[in-house]
């Protein structure tokens, strides 16, 4: 099936492994992804806080561009924040005609328009479990994730808020659990599975965020999880990149790799870890890979800047 693909900013930066693994599993699962032309940022959780009308218009441009492509009706976002912003804009434009009018008035300034309902905005997990389906996936599994104990982590934005047909239960979702089981993994009890990862609070007030992250890691560790599997770049970043800070802050010793569900699908389909972006995580997944009999291929350290690199200078390293 053919889908519009809205990767969003994170997937070209911090969550590149999510983009790599999504593209890697698309073909074997029979998914064709057509990227939205010249898409712009969805505004994350920031733009709506500063100017709502501009935020709706920002998202509106993406919907208008995607609708113009006409080769798909379903628009897929792998990032939960992008998903909620795209879906919320389409949904609210349909529900409040006055909003639709205003958004279209703004879009007119760029010769665009969008008719709410033209596109169906969906999260990647939705098309995988509902369009492809657990059974079809189970049949494709070559290397079952036997013996792996997985804590499935949903976070907030794919299950809440309710915008039209709900994707899963807002407090106790199951789709990722069932998917991991279809891959042959053992799902551990993870009562905090739909709790918040702290979102942007890691940037603003680390104390608030660290406690939320600590609870999640603690819950997964208590049940001896080999990995936490996520479907959102922000959740992945917070739990992975800040894990060592959490350990320092609380005197804990968590070593739980945080992987994307698409990487787990890829492993079960027998793809090499490197092709799925595994190896780019802060907390190594090597022990988990060995458990399923896959020898991790370590990434070579980068050899320094490329000659033609016109990038901005990196922040200097502070001494002392």
């Amino acid at each position, binding site marked *: 099936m053919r889908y519009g693909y809205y990767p969003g900013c994170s997937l070209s930066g911090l969550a590149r492994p999510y983009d790599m693994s999504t593209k890697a599993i698309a073909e074997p699962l029979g998914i064709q992804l057509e990227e939205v032309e010249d898409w712009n940022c969805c505004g994350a959780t920031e733009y709506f806080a500063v100017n709502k009308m501009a935020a709706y218009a920002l998202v*509106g441009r993406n919907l208008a561009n995607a609708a113009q492509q006409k080769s798909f009706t379903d628009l897929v976002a792998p990032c939960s924040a992008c998903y909620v912003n795209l879906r919320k804009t389409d949904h609210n434009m349909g529900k409040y005609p006055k909003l639709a009018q205003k958004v279209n008035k703004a879009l007119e300034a760029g010769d665009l328009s969008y008719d709410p309902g033209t596109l169906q905005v969906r999260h990647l997990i939705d098309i995988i479990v509902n369009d492809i389906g657990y059974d079809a996936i189970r049949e494709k599994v070559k290397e079952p994730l036997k013996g792996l104990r997985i804590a499935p982590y949903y976070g907030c934005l794919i299950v809440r808020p309710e915008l039209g047909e709900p994707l899963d239960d807002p407090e106790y979702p199951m789709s990722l659990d069932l998917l991991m089981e279809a891959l042959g993994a053992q799902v551990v009890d993870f009562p905090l599975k739909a*709790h918040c990862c702290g979102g942007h*609070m890691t940037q603003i007030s680390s104390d*608030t965020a660290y406690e939320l992250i600590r609870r999640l890691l603690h819950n997964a560790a208590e049940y001896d999880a080999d990995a936490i599997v996520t479907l959102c770049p922000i959740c992945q970043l917070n739990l992975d*990149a800040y894990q060592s800070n959490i350990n320092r802050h609380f005197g804990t010793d968590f070593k739980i790799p945080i992987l994307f569900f698409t990487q787990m699908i890829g492993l079960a389909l027998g793809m090499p870890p490197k092709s799925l972006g595994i*190896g*780019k995580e802060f907390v190594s997944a090597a022990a988990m890979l060995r458990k399923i009999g896959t020898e991790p291929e370590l*990434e070579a350290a980068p050899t320094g800047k490329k000659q033609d690199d016109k990038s901005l200078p*990196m*922040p200097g390293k502070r001494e002392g």
Partner: protein
Amino acid sequence: MNVTKSNHTFLMQVMDATLGGEALLTCLQCGSCGGSCPSGPDMEHTPRRIFAMIGAGMRDEVLKSNTPWYCVSCYYCTVRCPKEIPITDIMYTLKQMAIEAKLYDDRDAPDFSQSFIGFVENYGRSYEVGLATRFHLTHSPLKKFDYAPFALTMLTKDRLQLRPERIKGIGQLRAILNKAKTMEDM
């Protein structure tokens, strides 16, 4: 934009500036929102109390409080509220009003939002390195956490984008955003 119309009561202003905001009139003060809020312990006032304060017209106290800035947009309150009050969206409204009235005490959160938006308006994309660098340099980086080793690890893991990407239609996007900014919020 301009959310604030001075001839309206504060409660009406908040409702007008929030889609579905009228529901605020039906708040039962049951506290489900505050009880569900992961940031609750760090907020000066729980969401429930903020709504009582809005009803009581305590504009300055509400807009000065850290409550909306500690909201992480998790939507727990919103799905649990028995009256279907769009609480998360009200938090967005309060942030916008606080910025417009220059009434926030905690500067970090508004600065973060505005740095983020600066990149979006200049490039059409957000840009993690620039955002984090700009933010951490202006906000006593050592107090928060040491950003340099963090960025370095990201770099060796090939997870940092080294320069912001600019979309082709940046002119078009700015025209759209500028138009939108001339409109009343809802």
